[in-house]
């Protein structure tokens, strides 16, 4: 079943040097799957995620044929109705929990707020639900965490709290923008396992934005590879290592491999023509 369909998405920013095009005509669809979007910084992957939630503010310009969610074009939805889409239909987990949690508000109050905004229930019910959600993301002492402030949490805990908060309104789609980049490898694994479990149990669609190719190859079902605002290649995640596009190959080869030592790493040689080829369609 198709959850989301994006057609010909453009994101532009006016600058002194003229219009900068961050995303240039990207089309893809999302079903109940884990879709990875990879690319370097500046390739437009985060902007794609933000554009779906209409989080790009003027002077930024978002244009698309359509961004369809349940037969509704999100570009035509009023700002008031959009607030209901955010959180309830589509949630987003950002890169750094330090910047996405309110530093002067107790964690419990923040999670409860996320639930109360979308559900008219009593406070005690929201509280019970929040504790339950914290347990679902493997936080050992949820009562203590409810009372704590964000600075008392480690990065891994903070990110799990963010995931709990984003999943509590039970959205259909989760957009995770580099959710584990600020975390250690060992913690990374835990956070991914939790996300994976929740996505599977609830039958959600996941857009996983990352610069880490190996992580995406392992964790996602399908991958879109972005370069200079366009999708240059799309493939099944487990076949990422057989990718055809020289950009994808270049990125893979530039990684140091622990089992294959060499003196020099391969450096990515960019071909200006990569940016000129029209975007590949990322539909299933």
């Amino acid at each position, binding site marked *: 079943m198709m959850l989301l369909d994006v057609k010909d998405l453009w994101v532009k920013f006016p600058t002194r040097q003229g219009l900068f095009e961050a995303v240039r005509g990207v089309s893809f669809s999302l079903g109940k799957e884990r879709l990875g979007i990879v690319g370097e910084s500046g390739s437009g992957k985060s902007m794609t995620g933000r554009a779906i939630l209409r989080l790009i503010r003027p002077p930024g310009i978002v244009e698309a044929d359509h961004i369809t969610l349940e037969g509704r074009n999100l570009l035509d939805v009023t700002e008031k109705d959009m607030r209901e889409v955010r959180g309830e239909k589509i949630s987003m987990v950002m890169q750094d929990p330090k910047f996405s949690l309110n530093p002067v508000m107790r964690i419990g109050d923040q999670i409860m707020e996320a639930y109360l905004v979308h559900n008219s229930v009593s406070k005690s019910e929201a509280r019970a639900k929040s504790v339950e959600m914290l347990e679902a993301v493997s936080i050992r002492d949820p009562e203590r965490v409810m009372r704590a402030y964000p600075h008392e949490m480690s990065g891994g805990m903070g990110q799990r709290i963010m995931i709990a908060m984003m999943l509590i309104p039970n959205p259909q789609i989760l957009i995770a923008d580099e959710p584990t980049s600020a975390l250690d490898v060992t913690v990374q694994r835990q956070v991914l396992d939790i996300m994976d479990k929740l996505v599977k149990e609830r039958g959600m669609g996941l857009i996983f934005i990352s610069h880490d190719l190996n992580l995406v190859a392992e964790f996602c079902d399908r991958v879109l590879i972005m370069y200079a605002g366009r999708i240059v290649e799309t493939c099944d995640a487990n076949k990422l290592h057989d990718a055809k596009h020289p950009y994808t190959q270049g*990125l893979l080869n*530039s990684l140091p491999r622990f089992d294959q030592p060499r*003196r020099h790493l391969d450096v*990515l040689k960019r071909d200006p023509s990569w940016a000129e080829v029209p975007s590949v369609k990322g539909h299933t």
Partner: protein
Amino acid sequence: MTMITINGLNVWYGDGRDHVDAVKNASFEVAAGESFGLVGESGSGKSTILRAITGLAPNWSGTISIEGKQLSHGKRDREFYRRVQMVFQDPYASLHPRHTVDQVLSETLDLNGITGIDQRVSRLLDGVGLDGKFRFRYPHQLSGGQRQRVAIARALAGEANIILLDEPTSALDVSVQAEILNLLTDLREEHNLTYLMVSHDLPVIGHMCDRLAVMKDGEIVETLTVDSLRAMRAQHEYSRSLLKASIV
């Protein structure tokens, strides 16, 4: 000859209720021309060791020796900073936002009492693969990789032979990481440098270093060569789990 000797090093932050032992009884040696890695998760104390060496973490006990000379607990002298330099993790934060590349490098050269600054600056930029046109740019006009090149040039300006690298590529894209790591490999050979490198990324340490120490909760759990780690001869449970998480 050993360049860096760390013996029974303890480093702590805060006092009373907030006392934290960041490093507990750490010992290792780095030979001249060697590249030594410290791996572990965040909070394991690996960066703190570098900070203690450079004098940025003043509360420490045990001994730190550089080229056989024991460091005092006071301020490091000029001579120390001429020999030992550090490259920081975040190239966005480690360069003065209102100084041009030229100012950054000239000031460092001047502090080290080096003459002929004009030529030296262009030679330094050349050495780290930066075109002359970048010389009068401000940090915000450079990409992350270019900034890290400037930071490396600054570390090399005083002809230091010991470079402390604190996650030098963690903030960079993989393609840029490859360029910076290649640059570091070449510079080490060219100038016969000794590296002490901190990273949470085991493949990066494996690529750059000859030997490494695995840290957990402020303690060194194991010191071994990269080759024996690669051959799965790690003794400690934690080193093995780290290895498992790093190989895909």
